[in-house]
């Protein structure tokens, strides 16, 4: 693929992520923080998130699978997940966390439960899409091109 095609693919992917609500404005803020002094910042932070959130979700799910679910603990995890997803612009994840907490506040256990699977799903989607995005970035750079920036 030549560079311009890569770049187009990249832009399309990124645009679709915003359109689908997987990413939000915060992600753009992160991109703007990336510069020559701070190359790869977005990649770094998102990778951190992958790790962190992955761990949280695993904990969360294992907690949920127990006989006696400690909802308070689960809520704490979800709260943290909400904070970090919000901070990097992972909109859908954040949104599911929000929903979960609303159910929790109303002591709606079923509602809470219904959020767990979507949460995991959104995380997986987010991860794979962002990984694809980063891979494209690498290819573009390797091909000597520059990464198109989103302007919102």
């Amino acid at each position, binding site marked *: 693929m030549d560079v311009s095609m890569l770049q187009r693919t990249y832009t399309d992917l990124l645009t679709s992520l915003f359109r689908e609500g997987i990413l939000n404005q915060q992600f753009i803020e992160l991109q703007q923080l990336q510069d020559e002094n701070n190359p790869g910042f977005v990649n770094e932070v998102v990778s951190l998130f992958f790790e*962190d959130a992955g761990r949280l979700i695993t904990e969360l799910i294992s907690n949920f699978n127990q006989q006696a679910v400690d909802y308070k603990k689960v809520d704490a995890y979800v709260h943290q997940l909400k904070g970090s997803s919000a901070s990097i612009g992972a909109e859908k994840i954040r949104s599911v966390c929000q929903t979960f907490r609303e159910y929790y506040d109303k002591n709606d256990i079923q509602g809470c439960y219904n959020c767990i699977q979507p949460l995991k799903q959104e995380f997986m989607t987010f991860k794979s899409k962002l990984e694809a995005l980063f891979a494209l970035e690498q290819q573009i750079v390797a091909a000597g091109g520059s990464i198109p920036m989103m302007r919102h």
Partner: protein
Amino acid sequence: MDRGDVDEGQFPAGLRVLVVDDDVTVLRVLKTMLLQCRYEVTTCSQAATALSLLRESKDTYHLVLSDVHMPDMDGFKLLELVGLEMDLPVIMMSADARTNIVMKGIKHGACDYLIKPVRMEELKNIWQHVVRKKWTDNNRDLENSGSFEEGERTIPNNNANINNNNNNNNSNKRVAEDAEYASSVNDGAPDGSGGWKSSQKKKRCTVKEEEEGETESADPSSSKKPRVVWSVELHQQFVNAVNQLGIEKAVPKRILELMNVPGLTRENVASHLQKFRLYLKRLSGVTQHHPGLSNPFCGPVSANIKPGPLGRLDFETLVASGHLPPQALAVLEEELLTQNGSKQPIREIAFGQPLVKCGPPTSLTRQFPQSNLSNITMNPSLDMPPSFSSWPSNNDLAQIMQQQQQQQQQVVGSVGSVPQPSASLNVQPSCLVIPSSQQMNNFQLNDNTILANQSQQSQSQGSGFQTGSSTLVQSPMMLPSQSLSSLQGVNPASQNFQINQGSSIIASQPSISGNSSYTSVGPVIDYNNNLISTQPKNLRFGVGQIVDDGLKTMTAASNNNSFSMPGMMSGMMNSGVAVTGALVSDNNRQVRRNNLGFVGKGTCLPSRFAMDEIDSPTTLPNFSQIGGGDLVNPDNFGLDGQI
């Protein structure tokens, strides 16, 4: 980055921020954003770490950004501690946008509450909190030590605030002065000294005017009273007097009489009392509800319970140390029992203290009359605008409000009824007000520490942003001799008093504990009787190499006041000037950690209370420590390892 490198014209760059959040992703993002704002950033993922960082070097940071939900400590607790111990502005952050939680943050003293995701624009503005706080504090102190009488005279006309800026012409003038300086800061200063430095200068100038009694002060009608240093002994006497009188009857005049300290004015006592009351109020948390009133701020009932098993202990300690009248404890205990047995909604509390319900108005409740003495409005838990009509128990609310107002007026009345001419005792400027029983030892340490401070101060003048506390120190290096004479006047027999000698000073652990004061660990008192924080300069995380500069400065200045640095270091508790080579021993270090020094203003109360275990039981509450394995400091505010 060396402080000297901070470009004054780049204000607010150079702001030193400490960020606390257990989420590494968030920390990373925030750090990058803050760096983008040209602030200096230190991050930590644990509240305990943050606290120890802050305690080690109080002047290192200007601002703390903290998450609300952290596993090792509740963010609100950290907030309170930082506010009380270091008096730094704290901004809370959370993904939790619920109004009640936000309100809780504000009540606990947060300067601001940011909802995650935190955006760059928000971070760009955080410097305002630092500047605002410094100016506000400065003004408040000036008024406190200024003409209190004027403020008093207007009391009958305004039952909201006694020591009210607005009522006092003097303070208005002073505020205006500061405002002028303020604008110069904002403009990046036409004189080229914009930025953190100039705001420091301004404060120094203002304080200086007052101290030196120069007529060039824009406010000739205010009397220039020297600042009072509330040493441990002095404060102890104060507290004893208050207890003797009973907190309700503790009016400045009576307290002053009981204290019987030459040179202390009723105004000094009054302002100190105001702060003491504030402190007590915070101690009790947001607990003053009428029993029937469900707490509108509570989220789900379970979420906010903090039943500290220590709470009882804390109060007992308070009583034992004489700071709580026994009847207050009885009331608390009773309420506790009731609390546990009842199904009433649990209140939120700041520390791991028992929830104190408001029963029928008790003596304890009455201990905390609200805004009459401060500019803070009423009982924080009741601090709701009447428009919140959706709350339950409006009737109860009304009752409480009324009750509060009555209390206000009571106190107002009582204060108003004791107009006092200012004390006619002759207190020299730059003279430490020392209770007669004061031992020399304590002050030596402070003197030396001050010297260190002085030099640090002079050094850091050129280097940008400093917290308000350190800026109050303005004395030139020559002062030591001045106060030396005055101090020696007090206790010429002291053997340890050595300023102009090369020998090391102190640190007598033994003498410290013997004196049952914590000045050894103590707050630094400068020559202008300003209680200032200890040196900041023990830096970590590469936020600056002030340590070295300080060392240089001190060495340079030591021709005048040749105290031995290393010796002093070892002697210096709570010393931020614990510069590299002269690291204090572990023992001292421990002690130092325990000292919840003092940030800032002459009569700033909170640190006073933060005494440590070294002190005699007569010192202020030593809330016992808790688990929390990695807590640095088994500390006074009942640090809780649990959330």
